[in-house]
């Protein structure tokens, strides 16, 4: 018999009580641990640490300020005030009984006012009751009761009036007593007031200090689990309607949280050395972030300019991008930084911040004050990137081709020179914008080298086969020395340099000076006859050239052409066309033919073609391949589409669409790829050169960009992002914006800033002037200064008037269309926010004109300004060499502007030769010295004549001391002058 098993303990439940307890216990412990962990992690979020640390730093800074302030308070002043207070207090003690008496009597009067007022109110109530009784009597009672009720009302009314008077009298008495008391106390109050003034700064700091103390309140409010109530450490965010964040085709409003850590960015004063990021004030609070700036934080936030993930409150996730490796390593150490491969728009590194302007400002052509970006914009304009790549932004649309017209090239240069040039343009002219297409890093092996040679020669053969032949008449003899003087004085140097040593990188900050080619070595490129014809009329060679007509006489053109062709590079003269491998050329031709023919057909066709036919055919195909027509007018290529990819939204293209090739050391960011592409465009073929078909090799040419040039171009490229701003939120909306954009395009096209200062940029010619006095005018305030009609006709034909006869530099004739001239007039008016069409000038009153004439003589205005044709003749030309003729004023200047100009010329155009006649006062205004001067004996005549218009000397003095009246009178006198 088997041993009986012990009876199992019969469970009283269907589950294991103990086991469940253990599970529950473990679960709840686990949950507790997780909860605690959550609390700890939440409490330890990095931004909280940042805010807490800032609070400490701010407190320390205030404490320092307090100490300084305390030291700064003038001890003497303080002592005097304290003494005053003490004296007053002593005085009060002495007059203690007096004060007490006043206080007592006020107290007594208080009581009386109260009593009397109480009685008055009681009577008022009784009157109301009596009136009611009167009503009752009228209804039911007899005559007697009516009379008695009436009597009662009268008596009560009388009493009520008495009490009212008494109350008023007591109040008056009390006020009188109070005034007397205040008088006695006033010395002390005054002293305390002054003490308060002295301590105001201290009090302000103390108040600030109390807000940043880490006291019990602070710890309670921010304690874990308590901080849901009203924590002082909290996420700071701003919702930005209309500024979108593009997430998978959905546009959602940005919610910027940057100020959660960048706590002081909207506050002034956190920019000393002791403040490091994220605690610093934003630079240029006059422009950004501050409420009064054009870009207040509440309207624009941060990420619309800086990019990055708007909602992030973690350093890495926000998308901070280091400027360089050093910063990257520092960030890794300090913030545990890692790159965000899935964030398409990481924060722009600090040196690229200006790229952020493009999102809203692209329609305005340029963004004033964004200097790096503007350098990049100018570079893109000069390099002609838009010739191959469409860039759908106002600054880069509908622009003329950057390179010279090649439709008449055979009559301009030698074919062998052209081949040498195409092979390596920077060899002949290091400053050129024309890039290198041939023999780049991805061209390896003898065969490919041979193909390059064949293409170069073929391109020249094709161009020569389609070029017009123009004969140039022999230029008259010229003098190089006179030509040199002209070159350096009439304004050529606003756009050209002539310097064989110049490097393009030296001009990155002065791109206006490279608007036209460096003319060094010109004599080895073109003939003097060509230069002479070109100078006489640039548009006859190329109708859309930016080169203006300088209205040179035959002799001037001869002298100037003699001077410029004297610069030569003999090693580029009498060149021979290069040898090439005809087999390689035939193979290239066959490859192209094979696109539309069978192998057999193409081979037969090649055999049927002459060597010249082959070369011309290959040339045409090569021009198509390299996109030469993007920058040059070439016969037969008028309507061919550009060959490059569109760049309008290049920086928003997902990163995986960029081919990094085998460059494993290159960080995988948009910025690094783009920088590498524009500096070494063929590098991504590395390792694949010999397996790729010849036609598959990268074709983008090498522009030889310096680091600074590349960074500037990049500061635009990185800003070419997908539309993420509501149209209405962009800058440059409305008529003014359109006018600015249209004007800026013309200003860029014709390089007006090479000579003039416009929108505070320009005067590039200054560096090349041999005489500083020959500097072309600063066009600040041109919009409020000149009349629209006058400016319009002047732009059309600057030769009609000699405005500043002392200048050798010439305003050229640009042959503007009416539309262009109108655009420029509207542009200048829009810069100054002036009405383009000013009102008709009015004549001043006879009185004002007559007084104006006397003042004009007293101030000796005619010492510099010609005021009549006779004066110019009499001075033998000396007058007129200093200042514009006033005979032009009425036609040219705006009536309302002239007095403002007379008053404060430096305020409109800093550095102008025109002085103010009115010394500045200590308050920043102007004072007229005429009121004093008129009483000198010298001006007795003027005084007598002016007195005709005044009743008293005082009246005259008042007039002459009023700067506005005086300048208006001068204007009214000037308005009487005319040719």
């Amino acid at each position, binding site marked *: 018999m088997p041993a009986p098993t012990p009876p199992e303990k019969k469970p009283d439940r269907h589950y294991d009580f103990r086991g469940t307890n253990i599970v529950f216990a473990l679960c709840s412990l686990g949950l507790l641990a997780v909860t605690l962990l959550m609390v700890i992690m939440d409490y330890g979020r990095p931004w909280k640490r940042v805010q807490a640390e800032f609070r400490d730093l701010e407190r320390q800074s205030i404490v320092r300020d307090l100490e300084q302030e305390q030291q700064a308070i003038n001890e003497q002043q303080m002592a005097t005030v304290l003494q005053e207070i003490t004296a007053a207090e002593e005085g009060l003690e002495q007059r203690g009984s007096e004060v007490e008496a006043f206080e007592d009597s006020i107290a007594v009067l208080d009581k009386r006012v109260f009593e009397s007022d109480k009685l008055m109110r009681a009577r008022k109530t009784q009157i109301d009751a009596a009136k009611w009784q009167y009503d009752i009597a009228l209804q039911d009672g007899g005559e007697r009761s009516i009379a008695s009720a009436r009597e009662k009302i009268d008596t009560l009314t009388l009493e009520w009036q008495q009490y009212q008077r008494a109350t008023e009298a007591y109040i008056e008495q009390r006020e009188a007593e109070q005034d007397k008391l205040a008088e006695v106390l006033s010395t002390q109050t005054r002293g305390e007031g002054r003490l308060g003034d002295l301590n105001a700064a201290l009090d302000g700091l103390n108040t600030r200090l109390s807000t940043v103390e880490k006291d019990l309140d602070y710890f309670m409010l921010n*304690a874990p689990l*308590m901080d849901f109530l009203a924590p002082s450490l909290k996420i700071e965010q701003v919702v930005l309607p209309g500024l979108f964040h593009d997430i998978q085709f959905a546009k959602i409003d940005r919610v910027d949280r940057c100020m959660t850590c960048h706590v002081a960015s909207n506050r002034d004063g956190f920019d000393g050395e002791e403040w490091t990021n994220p605690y610093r004030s934003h630079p240029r609070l006059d422009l950004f972030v501050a409420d009064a700036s054009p870009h207040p934080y509440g309207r624009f936030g941060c990420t619309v300019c800086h990019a990055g993930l708007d909602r992030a409150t973690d350093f890495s996730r926000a998308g901070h991008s280091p400027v360089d490796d050093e910063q990257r390593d520092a960030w890794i150490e300090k913030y545990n930084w890692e790159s965000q491969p899935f964030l398409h728009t990481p924060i722009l590194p600090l040196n690229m911040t200006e790229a952020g302007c493009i999102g809203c400002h692209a329609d305005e052509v340029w963004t004033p004050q964004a200097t790096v970006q503007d350098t990049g914009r100018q570079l893109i304009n000069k390099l002609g990137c838009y010739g191959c790549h469409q860039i759908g932004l106002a600054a880069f649309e509908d622009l003329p081709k950057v390179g010279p017209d090649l439709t008449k090239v055979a009559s301009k240069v030698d074919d062998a020179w052209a081949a040498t040039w195409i092979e390596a343009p920077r060899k002949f002219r290091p400053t050129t914008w024309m890039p290198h297409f041939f023999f780049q890093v991805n061209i390896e092996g003898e065969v490919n080298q041979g193909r390059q040679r064949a293409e170069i020669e073929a391109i020249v053969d094709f161009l020569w086969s389609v070029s017009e032949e123009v004969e140039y008449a022999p230029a008259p003899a010229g003098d190089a020395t006179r030509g040199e003087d002209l070159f350096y004085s009439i304004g050529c140097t606003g756009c050209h340099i002539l310097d064989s040593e110049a490097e393009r990188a030296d001009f990155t900050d002065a791109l206006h000076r490279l608007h036209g080619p460096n003319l060094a070595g010109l004599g080895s490129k073109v003939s003097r006859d060509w230069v002479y014809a070109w100078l006489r009329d640039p548009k006859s060679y190329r109708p859309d050239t930016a080169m203006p007509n300088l209205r040179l006489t035959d002799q001037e053109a001869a002298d100037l052409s003699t001077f410029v062709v004297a610069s030569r590079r003999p090693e580029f003269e009498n060149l021979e066309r290069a040898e090439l491998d005809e087999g390689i050329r035939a193979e290239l031709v066959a490859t192209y033919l094979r696109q539309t023919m069978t192998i057999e057909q193409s081979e037969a066709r090649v055999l049927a073609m002459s060597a010249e036919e082959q070369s011309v055919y290959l040339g045409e195909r090569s021009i198509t391949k390299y996109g030469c027509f993007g920058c040059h007018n070439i016969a037969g290529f008028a309507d061919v589409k550009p060959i490059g990819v569109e760049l309008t939204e290049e920086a928003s293209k997902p990163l995986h669409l960029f081919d990094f090739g085998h460059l494993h050391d290159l960080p995988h960011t948009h910025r690094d790829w783009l920088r590498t592409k524009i500096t070494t465009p063929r590098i991504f073929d590395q390792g694949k050169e010999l397996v790729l078909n010849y036609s598959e090799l990268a074709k983008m040419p090498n522009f030889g960009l310096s680091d600074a040039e590349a960074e500037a171009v990049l500061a635009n490229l990185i800003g070419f992002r997908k539309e993420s701003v509501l149209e209405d939120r962009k800058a440059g909306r409305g008529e003014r914006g359109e006018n600015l954009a249209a004007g800026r395009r013309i200003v860029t096209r014709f390089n007006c800033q090479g000579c003039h200062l416009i929108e505070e940029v320009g005067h590039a010619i200054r560096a090349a002037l041999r005489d500083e006095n020959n500097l072309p005018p600063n066009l600040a305030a041109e919009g409020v200064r000149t009349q629209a009609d006058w400016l319009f006709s002047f732009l059309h034909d600057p030769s009609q008037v000699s405005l500043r006869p002392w200048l050798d530099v010439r305003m050229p004739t640009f042959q503007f269309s009416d539309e262009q001239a109108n655009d420029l007039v509207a542009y200048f008016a829009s810069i100054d926010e002036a009405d383009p069409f000013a009102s008709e000038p009015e004549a001043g009153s006879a009185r004002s004109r007559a007084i104006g004439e006397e003042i004009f003589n007293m101030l000796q205005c005619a010492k510099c300004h010609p005021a009549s044709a006779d004066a110019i003749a009499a001075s033998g030309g000396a007058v007129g060499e200093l200042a514009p003729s006033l005979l032009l004023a009425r036609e040219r200047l705006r009536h309302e502007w002239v007095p403002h100009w007379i008053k404060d010329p430096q305020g409109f155009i800093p*550095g102008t030769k025109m002085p103010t006649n009115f010394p500045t006062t200590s308050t920043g205004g102007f004072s007229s010295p005429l009121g004093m*001067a008129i009483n000198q004996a010298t001006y007795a005549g003027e005084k007598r004549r002016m007195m005709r218009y005044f009743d008293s000397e005082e009246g005259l003095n008042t007039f002459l001391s009023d700067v506005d009246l005086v300048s208006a009178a001068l204007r009214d006198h000037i308005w009487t002058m005319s040719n």
Partner: protein
Amino acid sequence: MKRARTWSLVLFSSLAVLMMAACGGGSEDSAPVVSAAPAAPPAAAGNATVSGTVTLASGEDLDITIQMNADPVCAGLHEGDVQSETMVIDDEGNLANVFIYVKSGLSGSFPAPSQAAIISQKGCLYTPHVLGLQVGQTLKVVNQDPTLHNVHASPKENAEFNQAQPFQGMELERTFDSTEVMIPFKCDVHPWMSAYMAVLDHPFFAVSATDGSFSIEGLPAGTYTLEAWHEVLGTQSAEAIVEADGSIEVDFAFEAGA
């Protein structure tokens, strides 16, 4: 019910306090370095002297005559030719109108003198042609001529001004906030008129006289870099070591065309 809520608050608070204690109560105090720059103390007075002569080696006649015909009033104020003040050299080759000053090596602050430095416009020339003054010191420009002058200063560090003086005897006063060597003055009415003014933060400067001599007095002992400035010849530097109450000679020799 109300009671229960109060209790839970107290509980939370005490928990909070405990947590805080556990977490060390937040960030540690890391006081940034105090960088308050107190004003330099007044410098000790000295009694040393640096003197010398400025010469110009040139075989050419550098005199240039000024043509004042453009303004008959100016021409009428002179009998005979007026020489340019740009190159003033005596027969021994001593050069005037050179500004010599202590460029570096000084410490402490030097209060600006209360009396004004004066430039006169007399005979359509600026007198003196070269001068120095201190930051905060008043410059007074006087027109002594019966014709219009304009005082046009083109500083780089200080504020530009351009003030007409149409009346004889007119004065204008300015002070300058920053040191600057040199501020050019010109009169746009009379293009030949020019003057140069240096603004320094100390009084140790001199302008060479017609015999080329100069003398800087009252220097404290020390090692200084002196600079001599001329409007067309440029600058030259020299080191000077002076002892208290000592006096040393430093000469400057310019070369034309250098």
